[in-house]
């Protein structure tokens, strides 16, 4: 029987063992990686591949003689929680490297903490503008923006998304009138700003009708639909959250608004969102940053994008999604940096090694310091290709995402051409 006395004794012994064992373990033991992602909550669809990719990484690392440990922490889709678990990983788990993925709400707090604690961090799956500019003390004043010493990000930017949409719209005969549905949130305001769509669209000869910033989770879009109908917009675009797009699109069809092209950022990333629309989802288009058709292969396992997606579908029992490739690429970059670094327990040395990366990953080549970005972001941001995709409803009710535009990365094969919604 355990009474208070034996419990205390036992506790003291194990506590002593822990303090004795810990330093030796820290010095000679495996390199510790902390991974933060939105495992639960509204953003959890981004993290479906986490378990599978971590297991795959640990297996590959062991085979290649890398002694690593991965601690996965759930941000619960909450920026405050993300910051809290990042701090926990750094102070309690004493990680040597942080990885973080999916939306600025997750990446930004984690990267800010890593930067202040001088722990290297690799981040992805958030357009680079909200990642870089969103972490600055004064986002409104470009003169005050500072580079980071420990935070490295790879993804695409707003300009790539705008470019992909414009090239898609060029490929069909329309009246070049565009209706825009931009919410009053970070993404919506960025798209509506000078660096967003209106200027670029005007330069390409498109006329944008901006229906104004509405609030997320609106139940009624009649005002916007009315405006698009009056202007005769044959193209419709926007960056709504998924429930709002469903409401909008269902109402639009009921009220007789039928544009030829509908290109929606963010809301149509996941097959579930499109399947929820049923027949109304056919031929909607969106940005596409990774698919099994990408002609790249993993540096970690040698699998092609197609094989990786198939392995994920087998293991998880669900259709591949775009973030799957990026979750894998994060671990590819981690393995690559750890292999090249002489002393991964030295934060400065590891950050320098990451900065010097040039790796062909399953999402394309990732290397920092390239000239396809403005000067201020060059050190910390690496760009990956972005193309345009269109959802096609198959006979069995499933939706396939077909690549219809590749101006940004001609090496990615087209799967078809943009079809009008009919």
């Amino acid at each position, binding site marked *: 029987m355990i009474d208070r006395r034996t419990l205390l004794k036992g506790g003291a012994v194990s506590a002593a063992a822990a303090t004795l064992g810990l330093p030796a373990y820290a010095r000679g033991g495996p390199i510790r990686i902390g991974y933060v992602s939105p495992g639960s909550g*509204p953003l*959890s669809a981004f993290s479906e591949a986490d378990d599978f990719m971590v297991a795959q990484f640990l297996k590959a690392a062991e085979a290649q003689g890398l002694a690593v440990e991965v601690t996965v922490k759930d941000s619960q889709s909450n920026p405050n929680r993300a910051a809290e678990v990042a701090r926990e990983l750094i102070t309690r788990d004493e990680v040597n490297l942080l990885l973080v993925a999916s939306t600025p709400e997750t990446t930004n707090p984690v990267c800010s903490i890593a930067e202040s604690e001088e722990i290297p961090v690799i981040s992805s799956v958030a357009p680079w503008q909200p990642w870089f500019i969103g972490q600055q003390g004064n986002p409104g004043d470009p003169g005050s923006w500072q580079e980071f010493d420990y935070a490295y990000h790879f993804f695409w930017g707003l300009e790539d998304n705008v470019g992909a949409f414009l090239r898609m719209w060029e490929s069909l005969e329309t009246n070049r009138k565009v209706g825009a549905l931009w919410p009053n949130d970070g993404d919506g305001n960025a798209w509506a700003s000078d660096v967003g769509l209106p200027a670029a669209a005007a330069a390409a000869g498109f006329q944008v009708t901006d229906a104004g910033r509405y609030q997320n989770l*609106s*139940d009624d879009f009649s005002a*916007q639909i009315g405006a698009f109908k009056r202007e005769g917009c044959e193209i419709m675009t926007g960056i709504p959250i*998924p*429930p709002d797009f469903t*409401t909008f699109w269902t109402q639009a*069809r009921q009220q007789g608004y039928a544009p030829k092209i509908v290109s929606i950022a963010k809301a149509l990333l996941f097959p579930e969102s499109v399947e929820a629309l*049923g027949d109304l989802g056919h031929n909607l288009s969106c940005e596409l940053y990774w698919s099994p058709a990408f002609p790249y292969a993993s540096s970690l396992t040698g699998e092609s994008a197609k094989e990786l997606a198939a392995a994920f579908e087998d293991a998880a029992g669900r259709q591949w999604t775009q973030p799957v490739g990026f979750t894998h690429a994060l671990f590819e970059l981690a393995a690559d940096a750890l292999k090249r670094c002489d002393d991964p327990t030295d934060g400065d040395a590891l950050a320098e090694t990451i900065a010097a990366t040039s790796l062909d990953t399953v999402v394309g080549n990732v290397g920092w310091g390239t000239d396809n970005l403005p000067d201020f972001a060059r050190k910390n941001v690496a760009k990956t290709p972005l193309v345009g995709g269109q959802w096609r409803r198959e006979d069995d009710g499933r939706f396939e995402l077909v690549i219809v535009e590749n101006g940004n990365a001609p090496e990615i094969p087209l799967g078809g051409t943009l079809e009008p919604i009919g």
Partner: protein
Amino acid sequence: MIWLDTLAQGILLGGLYALFAAGLSLVFGIMRLVNLAHGDLIVLGAYVILVMVSVTGLNPFLAATLALPVMFGFGMLLQTHLFNRVLGEDILPPLLVTFGLSVVLQNVLLETFSADSQKLSMGPVEAVGVPLGPVTLGLVPLATLGCAVAVIAALNLLFYRTKLGRAFRATSDDATTVQLMGIYPARIFSVATGIALMVATLAALYLGARANFDPTIGPARLLYAFEAVIIGGLGSLWGTLAGGLVIGVAQATGAAIRPEWQILAGHAAFVAVLLFRPRGLFPRAND
């Protein structure tokens, strides 16, 4: 023409809000219980319909008829074993319990159905519009408004024309004295919550037809329901319908002027009504 369209779309939207609010109004009117979990119970109803659809393969409208008795039973159990234990002089315990229930429901749904957003797919009828003179109205939103009016009318009949309704009203007036007449308030409360959850299921059907839902979407809907109940006047069912329409039209009008003002306009209408008629538009005389 724009104004006519705005008014028509606003009234249709108001129908949905009135459906959200009807169950809340019923429960509050009878037992003075402010059910903070009402929005989550609507989302629960949507998931029950979704399960019925995927198990039986029926159209959501038919699946909802299967979901109604399930939700009625759940409401009875909820009231009998949870709410009845905390109802009393103090209004705080039931409030806290429903708040806790809201958190529990969200997380159970998240655990069971994941965070994927879902929709009740009605098939081709979803995209059908009915041209009425200068405006085109969606068939499903029209059905929503029709259902809201029917539900309110049916609840009124139940309240003022049946024996059960008499018991409801009597219990609402004085829960102690009715016991002298052989009415057991706890059982009356259970039936009332069961009926409220059936109404919530109908609201869920039309919510699921109009927009996506996921486990966390309930509280946002609760707010409009509350405002509709308060605008209409506590305890008045027709008032609740009017309250829903006021918010719907206010939101549509706000959006027509500037989309930023859509949600704000609904809340502003709520404040305006409270300023000029603090007891709502149609308060029940004896409260």
